[in-house]
């Protein structure tokens, strides 16, 4: 009856894992310096091996994130799978009506949830928010890291803006992660206590039918056309 179906390819999962590790490391090494006067800030700095090591860890994690980003750009531009995935992540008009319908469903004004494709507006917001966040963090981070170089031609305010931007965006990212991403994958009743597809790539057919009905239909008809096992996308 119910069957497991693939959702994320190995490449996707590796990218997610790299992103998760680098962002987590960046957050604990970054917030520990911003809140170094609090108890947990001091504990984190201690765990990170002191102030110097904390800085090194932060920069190292940034490099890892950069590599992940480069990997991702290669993935979405060079590989067939990546190009197809990226196309499906592009926002379109339907996302807005989906959002509207989803909210009215939550407010009990509609009896049925809107039917989502492979990526609903929820996933698209996650993807593009992170896209912008990482870009901002990268640009401001580079100015802060190589300040001696940038001081030779940038005015002081560029440094100040970068500093404010780096801290502000970091706060935004952690709030976004908790309120949006972690809620969806851990706390939303359909996924609680967690959705493990980021690890092994599979979800149940039932979950697929409930959460991504359009993709499920597509998958079904494809499977009917080609008696081959469904691909990652």
């Amino acid at each position, binding site marked *: *009856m*119910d*069957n*497991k179906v693939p959702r994320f390819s190995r490449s996707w999962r590796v990218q997610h894992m790299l992103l998760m590790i680098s962002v987590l490391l960046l957050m604990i090494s970054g917030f520990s310096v911003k809140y170094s006067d609090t108890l947990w800030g001091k504990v984190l700095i201690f765990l990170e091996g002191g102030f110097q090591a904390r800085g090194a860890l932060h920069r190292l994690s940034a490099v890892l994130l950069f590599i992940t980003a480069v990997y991702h750009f290669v993935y979405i531009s060079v590989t067939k799978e990546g190009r197809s995935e990226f196309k499906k992540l592009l926002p379109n008009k339907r996302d807005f009506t989906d959002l509207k319908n989803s909210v009215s469903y939550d407010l009990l004004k509609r009896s049925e*949830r809107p039917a989502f494709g492979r990526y609903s507006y929820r996933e698209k917001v996650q993807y593009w928010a992170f896209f912008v966040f990482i870009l901002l963090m990268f640009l401001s981070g580079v100015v802060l890291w190589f300040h001696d170089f940038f001081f030779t031609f940038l005015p002081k305010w560029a440094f100040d803006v970068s500093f404010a931007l780096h801290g502000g965006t970091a706060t935004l990212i952690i709030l976004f992660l908790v309120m949006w991403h972690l809620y969806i994958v851990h706390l*939303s*009743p*359909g996924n*609680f*206590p*967690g*959705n*493990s597809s980021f690890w*092994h790539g*599979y*979800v*149940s*057919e*039932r*979950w697929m039918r*409930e*959460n991504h009905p359009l993709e499920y239909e597509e998958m079904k008809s494809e499977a009917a056309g080609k008696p081959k096992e469904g691909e990652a996308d």
Partner: protein
Amino acid sequence: MKNRFLYILPLLLSILFISSLSFAGSNDDCLACHSDSTLTMQKDGKTISLYVSGHVFDSSVHGDAGVGCTDCHQGFSADDVPHKQTTPNVDCSQCHDVKLHAPSGAKYQMAHSSEKCWDCHGTHDIESARKINVDCKCLSCHSAEKSFLTSAHSKQVIDHKGFTCETCHQKAHDVRQVAVFRGTGADTLCSQCHKGVESDIENGIHKKAFADGALRCVTCHTAHEARISKQEISTRACFKCHTDRKLFDGVNTSDGEELTTLVQSYSHSIHAESLKSTGKGATCVDCHGSHTIKPASDPTSPVNRENVVSTCGRCHADVEKSYLNSSHGKAFESGIAVAPVCTDCHKEHSIESVDSPNSPVSRAREPEICLNCHVKNKEVLKLTGVSAAFLMSIRSSVHIRSLESGNLKAATCSDCHGAHDMLPAGNSKSKVFRENIPSTCGAAGCHRNVYEKYASGVHGTALAKGNKNVPVCTDCHGDHQILAPSNPRSTVYATNVAQSCAKCHASVRLTERYGLPPDKVVSYMDSYHGLAVREGSTIAANCASCHGAHEILPSSDPRSSINGANLQKTCGKCHNGASVRFASTPVHVLTGSKGEPILYWLSEIYIFLIIGIIGLMLLHNVLDFVKKSRKKLTQRRTGVHPAEASARLYVRMTGNERLQHLVLLLSFLTLVLTGFMLKFPDAWWVKTMRDIVGNGFADLRGVIHRIAGSVMIAGAVYHIFYVSFTKRGRQFIKDMLPKIQDLRDAVTALKYNIGLSKDGPRFPRFSYIEKAEYWALIWGTGVMAITGLLLWFNNLSLGVITKLGLDVATLIHYYEAILASLAILVWHFYSVIFNPEVYPLNLACIKGTLSEEEMEEEHPLELERLKEAGESEIVIENGNDNPTPGQRKQ
């Protein structure tokens, strides 16, 4: 020249007399008739006396010279008596070559051209010209000029110094008309005697007017009086021109004021008023000089800014001296242009008494004029080195506010800083030098009573000994921005006092130096008093409530409010139940310190309990969570879900029980929130709430906490009633009693969760989890109710349980609260919310029922029992109002 004529006259007359002797009778012949004093004649209807006194004539100039009657009275027959012909007028020019008419073609007229010789010289009693002058015969006609008699010049006449009318008005017969006379330059005339005055005037600002003739000596000094009283200098001399708008049309001062208005404003000045009432007071000339008047812009003018101080100092010598010793004076002397001189504060012409409300340095207006330079002038700001904001803060002070509302006794700038003698605070002679402040505010100032208390207190006595670290008035009250203690922004407002005291009493440096107990502030801040004050209570005791404000004394002093003998009274101010016994244990206690062994060990035990119990709960639930999550995840991954559950529902909680739960839930949450609000007044969410609620926050919080406490106790009482007197209640308590089986179940659950056992425990109606929760709740409610009531009704309790007992109750109430909150969060919320089997919520507390699937999962033994008991316990089947599981699942 004329005088010489007088001596020639008798000679000429005697020649005439001899030549006419044969034709006329002698004087004696004439006097034979004319010495009769009744002899008269009628002319034009008037009776004219024809009497001539021979004695008067003989002693006159003519008589002396032997002039005969007929020498003057000619043209009639002497022999006809009475004389029939009318006697023609006497013609003096027969003998005297004197002309009273101006020569033809002259541009002037003679003043006396129409007068007769005898109008001045008299007839038979003719006198010497000198006598006419000296006796001021002129005034018999010119009576309007009688003021001459009191003039300075008149004195010269009386003293026979040779000054007569003629001195100014030309020789007797050459008296010219006054209008003409003026045009010929009286000033040249004046300067004949008053040497140097003319050049004095020409050195001054009046030079042009003087040359034009618009201004003459007499303009100011007047002609005949030639003297002007001090009182009249302004009104009669200077004002004549200087308040004339036509003369000074469009002439403005540098401030844009009309010059005439400026001059006129002198009339209201204290100088004018004082002159009027006492005869003493500066007039125009005292400041501006008299003949040599220079414009204020001239550096040599006495009213030039550079010279004003010494000009005023001519009268106000003491003020000048203290000014020159002041910061203002020193700055002025060193050439700093912005330093004020007398007129900058007091104004010039309009200068008024400082008691007058119009004076710019009146008590009420003083701050304005001081701040005008000290705040608005950037250069002054730079010189003084203090910020504009600091200076401006005086405007919101209780002093200036009170002053502005009309209380002229309130302190103004000069009361603290001094007026002419003001010095910067850093100068040890300054009134606002730190160590002089108590004397400025108190001893020499307004707050005499406060000063006496301060001086006898611990701070005042230390200051007197030369201790520089003790607080003076300004250290607690602020300096410029002194606010009333009732103002919430005041540093001595009820909720701010502790912070003001803490500046020193929590300072490591000061407490170490003077051996003060360093933890008094911390222990206060963590006490109920401190916490209540921190959340905004103005009723709860602050430092001053017990220690006093100004007269603070050490507890060893028998006069001290915190002396052991006085404690009952001091505490009794608020707590009428305070007994001697209550005050026998320490007041400032620190729960974390080993100095208070009971409190120390109690808190240690509680911390151990909290970490131990909550830690075990957490561990227990993590294991449970992992196990159940893996099950769920496996189901999703493999797609193998348990069979659709049946829609049968079983009663778990009746309406009554659900209501009890709801009352408990609401009162518990309210108690947790309002309780921790007191304990953590600085947490962001507490601050936010305080900002929203505003002033009454502390009271409102306390009231809500007590209401919620009462509700919870009422709920507990009801519950006791419920489990004692209802059948279901008694069954409930029976099912809730702990059994040995519960321990076995717990061990089984542990084994199952860590993978040592394949099957989990099968629970009856209440598992060991629910039993633990219930009995912990009973325990917690009891402990919280008892300690809470002790704290609430402290007036009753503190006489019995002492301060230490109250501290113990406070400590237990706090730690038990933490334990209960964490237990609810970790134990209860996990069971009913985060437990993967029930997530997002176990609906039993709302709907009152559990589904068969849920019963099978959580309470299989109870399900069996219910099924055995028969249909009676199964209440709803496929109830339409209850959604079947999965319908709205996302």
